[in-house]
């Protein structure tokens, strides 16, 4: 098992990155840090996906010298999937940052607990 883990050290690095992001997401109450943690988790996923597409002793999947044998190129599919993922994560990050700015303008804090308390109190006052 340890040998196998060492062979998959890139995937292990991805797991560690994912865990760092997940722990930050759970443990920190600061919205900015939560967004950063989400981005770290995204990156871990891309690293893992790209490592799945790799085949040793092959080149990037750009056809050179007219050779179209599968035996020469790595898997092009994970690269395309990662490209999609990057764009989606950029969009999600932008929307999250926009929402955070609005929350900050209203409550003057980035702490999720305080925001929650104030929002609850506002709700009680309304009813």
């Amino acid at each position, binding site marked *: 098992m340890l040998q196998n883990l060492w062979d998959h050290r890139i995937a292990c690095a991805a797991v560690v990155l994912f865990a760092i992001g997940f722990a930050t997401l759970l443990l920190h109450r600061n919205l900015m840090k939560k967004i950063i943690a989400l981005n770290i988790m995204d990156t871990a996923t891309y690293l893992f996906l790209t490592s799945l597409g790799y*085949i*040793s002793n092959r080149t990037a999947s750009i056809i050179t010298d007219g050779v*179209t044998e599968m035996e020469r190129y790595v*898997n*092009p599919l994970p690269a*395309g999937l990662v490209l999609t993922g990057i764009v989606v994560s950029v*969009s999600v990050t*932008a929307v999250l940052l926009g929402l955070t*700015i609005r929350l900050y*303008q209203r409550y003057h804090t980035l702490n999720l607990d305080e925001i929650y308390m104030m929002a609850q109190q506002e709700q009680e006052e309304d009813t």
Partner: protein
Amino acid sequence: MKHNLRRWLAQWDAGELDFTAKTASPELPQPRAETEWSKEPVRRLERRQAAAFNRIYPVLAAILCTVMIGFLFFTVSELPAFGSSDSPAHNEVTKRYVEQGMAETGAVNTVSGVILDYRAFDTLGESHVLFTATTAVLILLLTAQEEAEPKQQREIMQRDPILRQTAKIVVPLAMLFGIYVIFNGHLGPGGGFAGGSVIGGALILYVVSFGFERLEKLLNLKTFRIIVLCALCFYSLSKCYSFFCGANGLETIFSAGTPGRIFSAGLILPLNIAVGIVVACTMYGFYSLFRRGRI
């Protein structure tokens, strides 16, 4: 300097960094002082419960994280051998993409062929996700308020000779490089997303060093809308056409051409340009929205 940075980080950590103070609209309710709600008995009870929850929560979170890491490491250790060619990820789909891709799409770069021809629907959705995100940020931040940044500070930044001279050299080169990457998308590493980000970065650098006023004549909210909508509509309509023809076995007017030539690969080059325009405008739009609340 170091002390300042540490204090800034500590403030940031506590969530009390006041970087949007000037943008807070007066009609929004101001936050209450601490004393106002800590005196209420009901609130105190809730706070005690919250304190108990706050004690248990980190432990639970740590346990959850550990269990998840254990599962993930176990899964990783069971994966098929790294870098081997007979893992189940490399199946007949990949084989088809690599071996027939150049003949069918005309793209030398197989990844471009996959994302803009075989799986163009995917990329169409992707561009629309970007567009939707810009719209959402626009709705969230587009307010008729004064610019978030003090004018004085901006002027100091723009008078910086090092920044201006560097920008004079770097901006045209970055633009050119971005255009090269977009036009080279079907021939080598590159494509609409990468090139569009480079152009967007060049636009941001220009705006940082020379101010928004100059670029605004060329790229304001109106032209932004028109450019992005035209690019997205062109993408959707041309792909509708090619999907319709492909599904019914008809010949399209876009031929694959000679692989390796710049005007080849049928729709891939125009689609790359459309995607590049959308991405460049979106990157600049995000920056402009976050910096001053409008495009």
